[in-house]
């Protein structure tokens, strides 16, 4: 049977990763992968996916960021229960960190297959750019700030940051965990303690965000991969972006460590969020499709697909049991962090899309205007506190 898989993996590295996945799926099963890519980003694609599921015309499988995005669909009984497949294949044993599987679980049943771990807290640097400015590549946020004048002097954009809400809020959250630390991050987003939200740390983070706004001035970028491209070209020095940026570097033939640098948590506290993508399987009336769905769930979590997919995409595998000696220095760094248990839940797991969206709107507004850090901070506190 044909299995239609919808997703928004359309950038260069992402597309290459999907390619791998589709290849393996076709090789290992008798089913066909029908690609349903929707370009744009999650915010373009998700409504389409949701409306199709609600509209009773579901695709075979679909990407969501795992966490709370699909929770209501699951609650409404629109998603296939994968518990049997998971138990038969022992997902609980190899999926690491276990929080990944937890995010797929509702009332003890499993509804999605995690496919990768996305860590958004990375600061990427372009060695060529720093070289041109005659300074050492920055390894943390402070160094970047220090190098900024020299970079500007050399006509290099210190920080290449897309102006879209999700990218600017990604920067904010990277600062929360990188500057504030893991506990602070949890206090803010999990416990949503008023104290933490109003703390000096948080205040300072917003000041830093204002600095980032300064540093990214003149970039006029919107898509993240355009920003990454500036780094590849060497016309911008740094970008705070998820590990998927590596896909772009890889595609451009650049080598981690020599051509570009990577710093978890902006070079501060090395914690990575263990969010990522998961594949959900909408309930379906066609038995053949259901079989194909189970087969795909199995393939996705299998070692071969994990290696191929994550290598191409630059993300981390969900299995603790596979050998990734081949991977590059940056991925290695991520794996080590993971192995050390320095993980925090991703923002998708902690906040509703609604709250997350509001934060994105706030940071977008912040970057696109001269809103003061203090005002922004106050509004930020309100948004987070209003999370239901």
């Amino acid at each position: 049977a044909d299995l239609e898989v919808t997703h928004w993996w359309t950038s260069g590295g992402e597309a290459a990763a999907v390619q791998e996945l589709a290849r393996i799926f076709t090789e290992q099963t008798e089913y066909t992968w029908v690609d349903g890519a929707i370009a744009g980003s999650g915010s373009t694609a998700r409504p389409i996916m949701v409306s199709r599921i609600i509209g009773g015309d579901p695709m075979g499988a679909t990407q969501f960021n795992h966490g709370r995005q699909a929770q209501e669909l699951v609650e409404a009984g629109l998603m296939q229960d994968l518990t049997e497949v998971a138990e038969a294949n022992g997902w609980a044993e190899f999926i690491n960190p276990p929080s990944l599987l937890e995010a797929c679980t509702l009332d003890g049943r499993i509804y999605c297959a995690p496919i990768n771990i996305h860590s958004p807290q990375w600061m990427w640097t372009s060695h060529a750019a720093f070289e041109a400015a005659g300074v050492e590549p920055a390894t943390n946020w402070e160094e970047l700030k220090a190098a900024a004048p020299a970079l500007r002097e050399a006509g290099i954009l210190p920080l290449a940051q897309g102006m879209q809400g999700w990218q600017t809020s990604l920067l904010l959250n990277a600062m929360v965990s990188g500057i504030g630390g893991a506990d602070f991050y949890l206090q803010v987003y999990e416990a949503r303690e008023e104290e933490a939200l109003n703390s000096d740390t948080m205040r300072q983070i917003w000041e830093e965000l204002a600095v980032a706004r300064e540093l990214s001035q003149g970039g006029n970028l919107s898509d993240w991969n355009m920003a990454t491209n500036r780094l590849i070209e060497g016309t911008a020095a740094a970008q705070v972006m998820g590990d998927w940026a590596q896909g772009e570097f890889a595609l451009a033939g650049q080598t981690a460590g020599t051509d570009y640098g990577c710093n978890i948590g902006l070079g501060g506290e090395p914690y990575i969020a263990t969010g990522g993508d998961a594949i959900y399987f909408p309930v379906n009336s066609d038995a053949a499709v259901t079989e194909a769905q189970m087969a795909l769930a199995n393939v996705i979590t299998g070692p071969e697909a994990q290696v191929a997919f994550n290598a191409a995409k630059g993300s981390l595998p969900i299995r603790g049991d596979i050998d990734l000696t081949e991977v590059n220095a940056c991925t290695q760094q991520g794996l080590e962090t993971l192995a050390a248990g320095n993980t925090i839940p991703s923002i998708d797991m902690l906040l509703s899309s609604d709250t997350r969206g509001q934060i994105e709107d706030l940071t977008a507004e912040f970057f696109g205007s001269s809103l003061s850090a203090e005002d922004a901070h106050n509004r930020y506190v309100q948004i987070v506190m209003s999370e239901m």
Partner: protein
Amino acid sequence: MARSGPPLRLFQNWQAKLAATPMILTALVVFIGCSLWTVVYSFTNSRLLPRLEFVGLAQYERLWSTPRWQVSIENLAVYGVLSLILTLAIGFLLAVLLDQKIRFEDGFRTIILFPYALSFIVTGVVWQWILNPDFGLQHIVRGMGFSGFTFDPLNDPNLVILALLAAGIWQGAGLTTVILLAGLRGIDEDVWKAARVDGIPTWKTYIFIVLPMMKPVFATCVVLISAGIIKLYDLVVALTRGGPGIASEVPAKYVYDYMFGNQNLGQGFAASTMMLAAVLAIIIPFALFQLGRKRRV
């Protein structure tokens, strides 16, 4: 041959009624039904899926305290007013120019009308490209020696509305021109002659005599243009994605983003209900005006 007595009321005209069922269904089920559905659910806390848990006016309170919504409303107002005025002004000017018994009228008209054939996606892409600071206008002007020249509306929150206007008018003024031209052509030739005999200069004739005579045609244009303005969405998405920051957000995008992106249907519904209310606030006076006009004639 004569039928026995008057036919039942319901079956009078039954074919017409039958033929009009698609319209009746559309009007009742889609336009009224869906709108009501939306209004009802705007009082709930529906998130990803609609559910009837009423929360009173909470969604509206939040809506009006959200800066992005306020910006959206402001943008729509600014864009709407400017676009309405400019489209009408440019449309009328072009119609007047085309009405001067010129050569190649068909050619000019086609040139002015063709963007209307393109989708907003296309329009957005093209204008994004032209306004791109690194390749487009700014780059060209700088290349001509004005190295200090800065024109980057797509990245300037204060100017981004200009970019939307340039693209929106480029796309839409053609239709207005054609309608107004048809209106101009419909004006009694004798009025022109009378004005010439009275010694009234052409421009004055246009402004003081012809323009007021075209009120109904302008009304048609205003309806068409405002329907487009309220729905303004695709162009923003294609051209600016609401950016820089939230500088070019519009209500329709707010609705869409909240309903689907942020998975807060209740909020989206509240926003769309507000849009609906705005539409009513525009249409009802207009409809009354039309009614009044008919009655007077």
